[in-house]
């Protein structure tokens, strides 16, 4: 309670306007630019289908909301996140258990929790919540262990518990996202290299076991399809293989400069399922070509790089870890999605932030960058009094 009151005073001292001015506006403008590219691409991907004509407009409205979320999340003092990290984490964990018990099944998986009129997807909150919890944990405990091995065991638990719940839903993409961004934070906290090596070896060794015992049939099928197309075998054109093959044709036929806005025959032909959601990159690649598509990837690298620099400049461990975790979460989405669309990874439903149609990932991304902005504003606060 006292912390919250002190923070509020703090907040008032530096005027709100001053805070707004101090936000990392360069980063935010690049963020907006990326979202604009997303809406334009979506327009091209959907305009032939009368039933989907309103999707770009919906996406633009969602982006407007997401931007407000980003700014508000950015202006919240970093101290508050530290105070609230554990309540948020355990609250979200409780919601995940709620999904397990009372969740509604949507899209073949049990992910949604109905609270009154609102449907919430707690697994999505968990990405941010786990980052906050890990950051708070390392902030408080790192010095107790001075980087010893035991330091990381509770950290692992912070990830594994929600990851197991999410995996049961089943939501493979989010499970991976939790491990990827959590693993990144454990790495940044200085897990010994020899442990990292050991984990790497164990992970490779356990792949067959995971394949045969953990994956569900449909997931196994996707992996098979993926391996088949990687090695150049002919794949069953009716299923995922068809999707990957058509995606590759769309991308490959784009060339240097693409076929022109709304001219992509593959995209306009409706050959590619999910082309306005997970496979949006195919539209970009076919219609705008290599130069623009790789430009978009470079733009993402710049955005992520700037954010990571903010993380490194912060003085408190909490701000550093929180911002770095946010970067890792978004980076995972992008890397995984692009690799999947380019046929390098199996098809797992991971969207491309700011480009794919959908509100959930948009909000998660906005929250992540809001956290980065907050770390930026609070970069000189040591946060030791707590």
């Amino acid at each position, binding site marked *: 309670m006292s912390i919250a009151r002190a923070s509020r005073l703090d907040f008032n001292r530096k005027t709100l306007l001053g805070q707004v001015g101090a936000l990392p506006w360069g980063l935010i403008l690049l963020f907006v630019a990326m979202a604009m590219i997303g809406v334009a691409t979506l327009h091209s991907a959907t305009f032939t289908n009368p039933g989907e004509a309103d999707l770009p407009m919906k996406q633009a409205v969602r982006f407007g909301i997401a931007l407000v979320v980003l700014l508000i999340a950015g202006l919240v003092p970093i101290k508050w996140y530290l105070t609230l990290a554990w309540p948020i984490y355990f609250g979200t964990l409780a919601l995940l258990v709620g999904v397990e018990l009372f969740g509604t099944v949507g899209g*073949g998986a049990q992910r949604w929790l109905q609270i009154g009129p609102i449907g919430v997807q707690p697994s999505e909150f968990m990405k941010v919540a786990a980052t906050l919890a890990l950051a708070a944990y390392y902030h408080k405990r790192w010095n107790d262990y001075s980087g010893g091995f035991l330091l990381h065991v509770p950290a692992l638990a912070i990830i594994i518990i929600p990851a197991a719940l999410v995996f049961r839903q089943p939501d493979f993409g989010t499970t991976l996202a939790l491990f990827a961004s959590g693993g990144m934070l454990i790495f940044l906290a200085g897990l010994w290299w020899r442990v990292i090596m050991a984990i790497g070896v164990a992970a490779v060794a356990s792949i067959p076991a995971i394949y045969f015992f953990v994956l569900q049939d449909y997931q196994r099928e996707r992996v098979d399809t993926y391996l088949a197309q990687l090695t150049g075998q002919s794949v069953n*054109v009716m299923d995922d293989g068809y999707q990957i093959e058509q995606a590759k*044709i769309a991308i490959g036929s784009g060339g240097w400069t693409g076929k022109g806005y709304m001219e992509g025959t593959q995209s306009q032909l409706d050959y590619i399922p999910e082309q306005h959601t997970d496979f949006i990159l195919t539209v970009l690649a*076919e219609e705008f070509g290599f130069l623009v598509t790789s430009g978009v990837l470079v733009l993402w*690298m710049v955005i992520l790089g700037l954010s990571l620099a903010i993380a490194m400049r912060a003085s408190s461990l909490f701000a550093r870890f929180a911002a770095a975790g946010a970067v890792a979460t978004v980076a995972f989405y992008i890397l995984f999605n692009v690799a999947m669309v380019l046929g390098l990874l199996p098809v797992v439903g991971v969207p491309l932030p700011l480009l794919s149609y959908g509100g959930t990932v948009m909000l998660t991304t906005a929250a992540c960058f809001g956290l980065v902005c907050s770390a930026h504003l609070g970069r000189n606060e040591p946060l030791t009094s707590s």
Partner: protein
Amino acid sequence: MNGNRPIDALFSRRALIAAAAGGTLFGGLIARLFQLQIMEHERFSVAAADNGVRLDLAPPKRGRILDRFGRPLAAHRQAGRVSIVREQAEDLPRLMNVLSDHIEMSPERQARLINEARRQASFQPVIVASELSYEDFARLSVLAPQMPGLQVEMASTRSYPRGRDFAHVMGYVAKASERDLERLSDGSTAQERSAIRRLFKHPDMRTGRSGVERFAEEWLRGEAGFRKLETNAAGRIIKEFDDPALAPKQGKDLYLTVDSDLQRFAIDRFESESGAAVVMDIESGDILAFVSTPAFDPNDFVNGISSKDYALLRDDTEYSPLYHKAYDGTYPPGSTYKMVVASAALDAGIINPEERVFCPGHYRFGNNTWHCWKRGGHGSVNMHWAIKGSCDVYFYEIAKRMGVEHLAEYSKKFGFGQRWELGIMGGRSGVVPNDAWKRAARGEPWYEGETLNVGIGQGQVSTSPLQLAVMTARIAAEGKIITPRIIGEGPRPDADIPLDEPLDADLMRRMKAGMYGVTSEAGGTALRSGDLGLGGPRLAGKTGTAQVRRISRAERASGILKGDNIDRRLRDHALFVAYAPHDDPKYAISVIVEHGEGGSRTAAPIARDIVAEAMLLDARRTPVYTRTANVGGSSSGNGGL
């Protein structure tokens, strides 16, 4: 402070390593992009250019719907179709102009089609007309080679060879609307959702809108496939490959338990009356005829019915052709309910069947007078005489003695007040009234006087013709549980009937004796309809009249208005329930003639003729689907996409 702790330097070092790793991964992706887009560009652009093999979605053929003897009720018909393809047309308006010489089209329609073609992707065909006559099809086929952009082809459409005979049972198929798409993709993953959307947007694809077509959608749908086509640069199809692995799979056939000849006979027998009839096989519960007349023609709906024609069907509130009277219609059962009331009274032990009640033609209770249909009264009657003479006073008396709660509870054992799930959509439960029901529905307590009305099947009690047929079958089978069904082979609905227990056989035999008396003994109300005309077996049944309006005291004094003296809509409904043969029951039937006035005069002869026809046709004989394979043997589950 910053930088003093070992973690700070460590964090920065590790962050730089992570950034380098991330940068490498991004670099790798850009390299892969370069490989696909630049190095392999040639290969992929050839694949993408239309000069290559293209896979076009091919919708599956819907499974057929057949009657119990394998006669098709829903099948396929080839129909000629003409469409335009913008990409190939040199001059779209001119093409439309030429087309309008052959097909009747208003200028507005022409403009709309051109507009549609321009809005769509250039290679997607726009259908101009889909039900070409043979002459038109031949003429346009000759024209097509000289007119680029004109596409004339045969396509398969759903057809209902029996027309309106099974309109309500079967429902119809139509192009999927946005609402249908929502429903069809409910509970699917995003990926399945887009596949469903693509499939149902195909011009040849239809979905069940009502009836069994809708209920059994997945069973009937089949699996989509692809047409493997070689096309040239302009998108014109050069040749089609035959690839059985890609071919769509036809949906599974579905068998109904009905006999389509019996159905036809029953509908004809109603002539111009509106009404419903249900014929059931007492042994199996198979519904052999499920008539609701008049009906609509489902063929009119397959390619979209015009709003004018639809309005004609919808606005006919007197004969209501869209309404499934046999299943969705609920009417007061009138005197056909008397077997239920009598057996409930015996079950309650409030009367001895030999006890006599005196009927002077009216019954006084409180300050009111209830009337018997027979103005002069029946005199002194026991239960048997009360049933066959349909004495209202007797039933007022026993209903009052047992009270409405026991009557309601016992009624439910016959299947009243609950909906039978048949797997054809629709169906109503009707009302078995009691105090709790009235408080919930009307917010008022039950008045004892209302019990008297329910005792003769009038007032709040309402039942569907299907429920009456099930009641009759259960009486005829001396209390055995009989569950009606109409899907012989197909997705079986879950019949979840809360109150389903056998009835007392002794009581039911007594009711049967009463029903035999109605058609075959002196004093019976339907003596004229007892003889089936088959030289032996007789019909046992019960007449009924469902009141449509209240009769005022003044009208009763001056003579109740009937026939031509009163507007058709105000005339009572005529009911008849029966089973046959009387000594070895095989068939149960219920008939309602809307506004037919007297059960014995209009409904009973129809019921008698339908049952006689069923026996002549031997409608119960073994259906084909049980001969070929055991039910449930066609296992492969629901056809997805």
